[in-house]
């Protein structure tokens, strides 16, 4: 026993600062958050009467919160579809060495280095449906103006100012920002496939398309899974971009749990705010925990 302590004791000591910090800042705070979400602390005045699951029941029965959840689902679906399509397409085109390959890769990836707040500034302008001019009239601007002038006027729309589909417009800048990242993931996947595999398939008389369809693509499914987890969980947390594009945080059309949590916090409704935080945590955990368990099992093998 004593000898054991001597061998792994120093190791534990070295990582103990991190363990203590994360135990407090992640796990203890999650527990405390759950506790707050079960109190009636709905105003700035402290009050901590235990009300059980009442806040959760009320939230799930609330039409606004249901709308926010529906928005979140739509956002995630569009965001995922867009980044996977562009990311995969770009990686596929760039998979074989090409002239100027490094340039294309860098351009596609650069939005990733910019903050959602900074890119939100320009997307707010691009996605503005109408702009009021000095005389009080309304003129089209942003992307609508561009679409109009290149003869694609029928594609003009009101972007995020739509209670049903507005949130899908928010996915457009998100896709712009993260497709390059998904491309990088897929590129690494493509490059990880041994050349011998292609050679063997070619010797067996495999056509180029069949080679991809039956040999290369199936090898990419783990990469695809990673991309889905990464993008999916980013979508669940998306907050900055919405705040940057839509001036008023309390806009019904684009409300998602992350923005609603902020609105409740500003309004000092700490119990509801904490409850929404917990709901977000459960949503993320549903996606991430099975994945973490799966990868740690894979590693053991």
């Amino acid at each position: 026993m004593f000898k054991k302590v001597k061998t792994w004791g120093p190791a534990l000591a070295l990582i103990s600062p991190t363990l203590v910090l994360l135990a407090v800042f992640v796990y203890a705070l999650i527990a405390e958050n759950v506790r707050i979400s079960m109190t009636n602390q709905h105003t700035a005045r402290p009050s901590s009467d235990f009300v059980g699951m009442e806040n959760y029941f009320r939230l799930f029965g609330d039409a606004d919160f249901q709308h926010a959840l529906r928005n979140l689902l739509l956002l995630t679906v569009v965001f995922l579809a867009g980044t996977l399509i562009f990311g995969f397409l770009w990686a596929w085109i760039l998979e074989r060495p090409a002239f100027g390959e490094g340039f294309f890769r860098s351009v596609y990836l650069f939005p990733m280095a910019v903050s959602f707040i900074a890119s939100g500034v320009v997307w707010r302008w691009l996605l503005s449906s109408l702009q009021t001019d000095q005389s009080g009239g309304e003129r089209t601007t942003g992307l609508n103006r561009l679409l109009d002038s290149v003869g694609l006027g029928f594609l003009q729309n009101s972007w995020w100012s739509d209670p049903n589909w507005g949130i899908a417009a928010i996915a457009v800048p998100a896709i712009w920002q993260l497709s390059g990242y998904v491309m990088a993931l897929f590129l690494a996947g493509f490059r990880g496939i041994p050349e011998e595999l292609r050679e063997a398939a070619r010797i067996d008389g495999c056509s180029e398309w069949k080679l991809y369809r039956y040999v290369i693509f199936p090898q990419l499914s783990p990469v695809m899974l990673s991309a889905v987890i990464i993008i999916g969980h980013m979508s669940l947390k998306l907050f900055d971009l919405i705040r940057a594009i839509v001036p008023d945080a309390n806009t019904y059309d684009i409300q998602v749990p992350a923005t609603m949590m902020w609105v409740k916090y500003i309004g000092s409704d700490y119990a509801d705010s904490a409850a929404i935080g917990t709901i977000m945590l459960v949503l993320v955990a549903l996606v991430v925990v099975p994945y973490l368990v799966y990868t740690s099992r894979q590693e053991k093998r």
Partner: protein
Amino acid sequence: MTTATVPPPVEVARPRPPAPRTGRQKMNRTLKYALLLLFVFVVLIPAYVLFITSFKGPSDADPSTAWLLPTTWETAGWAKAWETLAPALGRTFAMVIPASIISAFLGSMNGFVLSRWRFPYANVVFTLILFGMFIPYQAVMIPLTQLMQVLGVPNGIPSLLVLHIVYGLPICTLIFRNYYESVPGELIEAARMDGAGLLRTYASVILPISTPGFVVVLIWQFTSAWNDYLFAAFFSSGSNGPVTIALSFLAGGQLTDYAASMAGALIASLPTLLVYIILGKYFVGGLMSGSVKG
């Protein structure tokens, strides 16, 4: 992101012998480049708009010229943006640099221990650490604001410094752990044979070979702390916040000075863009090993 499924950082350019070309392949090639260029234009549209709008004055306010180059190149927007953002830029540097360095060091020690110095339940501990990088911070935010008050950490830069260190730990640990997995075991065995303990091994064998890992982690931490808005929104205000907050005040509101806010967006993005342009390879390395923040 997490460990096994994402391939380790790869040197992305690997030349392969060119295949002989037929007519059909030539057509494919043309199509390929047409597509690549089209996408370049699409991706660069927002950058173009940012750039031209930042130089526009009141004479260009009409939406009909919105997509055209400025008729006169004015720098009033840039002047206003710089004036608004300069103090916040200084504060952000003062927060982001120490935060990156401290969390990188802690992450390096953790990564070393978790990859090389197995102790009971090391894997469980690692998974528990890793989970910290996936949680939506909203799930700890309300009690976190109270905790920081109890601890007496003032709002603004001090709070953000602490938070970026703490919540950066999981990703730093992950990147270093993956990096050290690739260090040959013999190196550490040799040190152990020579009677070096854990700390000695870390200081004299591991640290000297850790530079590439540090570059990746520092870039990652720098970028994500620089671009953070969520913590900044909860823990700072316009007068003591980082550049994302200052920019959102400059660009927010119903009546926006588009020239100034677009110039501001460019100024606020410049540090991370420079890092990306100069150290792009390492930037991609960081993305590969774990990009799940934000």
